[in-house]
C-alpha cells in the first residue's frame, strides 16, 4: 500500500464495493489508509457532509488495490 501513497487507486473491498480514491496517508501501525474518496459503487454508504471528510479504510477490509494511471 505504501507504494500507492498520493496515487489514484481503486480499492476492491471484500464486500464487493469498488472505491476510487486518492491515497493520502498509509499507516502500517494502524493498519489502515486515509483517502480522499472520489467515487464508489456504493455511494449511499457514505454520509453527507459540507466539510468533506477523509475516509479510513482498514487493510482487513481491502481485497486488492488497483493502481490507476497517473498524468503524464
Amino acid at each position: 500500500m505504501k507504494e500507492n501513497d498520493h496515487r489514484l487507486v481503486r480499492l476492491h473491498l471484500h464486500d464487493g464495493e469498488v472505491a476510487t480514491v486518492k491515497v493520502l496517508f498509509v499507516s502500517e501501525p494502524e493498519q489502515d489508509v486515509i483517502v480522499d474518496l472520489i467515487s464508489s459503487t456504493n455511494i449511499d454508504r457514505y454520509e453527507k457532509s459540507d466539510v468533506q471528510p477523509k475516509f479510513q479504510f482498514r487493510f482487513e477490509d481491502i481485497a486488492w488495490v488497483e493502481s490507476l494511471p497517473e498524468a503524464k
Partner: protein
Amino acid sequence: MLNAAGGWNRVETFAGERHIATYSGGPAGTTYFIHADWLGTERARTTVAATTYETCTSLPFGDNLQCSNADVSPLHFTGKERDAESGLDNFRVRYDSSNFGRFLSPDPNNAGGFEHQDDPQSWNGYSYARNNPLIYRDPNGESYTICDTTNHCQSITDVGFGDYLQRNPNVELINNQIYIKDDNGNFQLEGSYKAGPSDDSIGPEGNDILGGALIGLASGGAVAAGEGLIDGLAGSAGREAVKGAATSAAGTAVDEAAEISTLAAKAATTVGNQSAVASSRDVALKAAQEFLGPGATPIRAARGAGDIIGEISADGQRVMRYTSIDKASPYINLENKLTGGNLHIRF
C-alpha cells in the same frame, strides 16, 4: 394515465430509467416500442407488427421537434415529458426550455454558491447538461448530476478535484461525474459521490473526547498534581515515540516526540490544578491541534457506523486518531508521515 371511464388510456414502460414502450389508445389501444438515440431521445416508434409508426427529429437541445405521425406519447427529449401547452420538458425538479437550451430555473443545489468552482461550465445555473447536450443528459435537473451515453447517472463532489484534475488529464470531471480516459482514448465513467449537510465533525465531539482523555489521565492514577497526566502522556511519549525514533533514520521523530512531550508537560501543569479540569480540555485539544496544524480535516471510518475516528492535517502529513474513553482501550495516536514518528497515548 386513465381515461374518463377509469380504464387504461396510456401506459409508459421503463427499464433502468429508459423508456422502452408506450401503450396508447385506451382499451382498444396498442403498444408502441421506443427507439431512442444514445441519450434517450426518442427517434422512432414501432408497432407490435414491427412496422414503423413514426419517426421524430429534433436539434441538440431538443428544440424543433417534429414527428411524422400523431404523437402517441409526450416523452421525447432524453425521454422527458414535453408539456403540450408550454413546450417545456419536465425534468422533475425543474423545467427545461429546449428552445432556449436552458432550464427555466437555476440548479437548486447551486443556490448557495458555486458548488463546483473547478468547472466553469457549472457556473451558469441555468445551463443544461454542462452545455453539451450531444454527449450528456440531465436525469432530473438537479444537483449538477448528468448521465453519460451508457446511461450511468451518478453524482460526486468536487472535493480535491481541482488539484486532482490538474495532475490527471486522463480524468475529466463532468457535471458531478468522473470519467477516466482508457487506452483507446474513451472516457469511462467512474462511480459516484455525494455531498450534503454538515455535521459537528471534530468540534464539540473532539473536545469531549480529548477532554475526557485528560480527565481520565488526571484522575485515573490518584497521583499528585499532573503526575497522572505526565505518566500517561509523557510515559507513552517515552515509550512509543522511541519506537518512532527507532524507525526514523534521521531521528527527527525524536524532535517530534520532544515537542509533543513539551505540550504534554504544559497540559500536565494545567491539569495539576484539579479545579481546572474544564480548561484541560482546551489544553488537550490545543496539543493535538498544534500537532495537526490549521485546516485539519475529520476522518470518518468507511466501515461500521462511519464514526469520526480522527483528523488529518491540511498537508496530509500528520494524522491524529482517537477513541472515546468509554471504549475498551481508549487512546490518542499521532502519526507523522515525514518523520515516521508514531506517538500512541493510552489512557
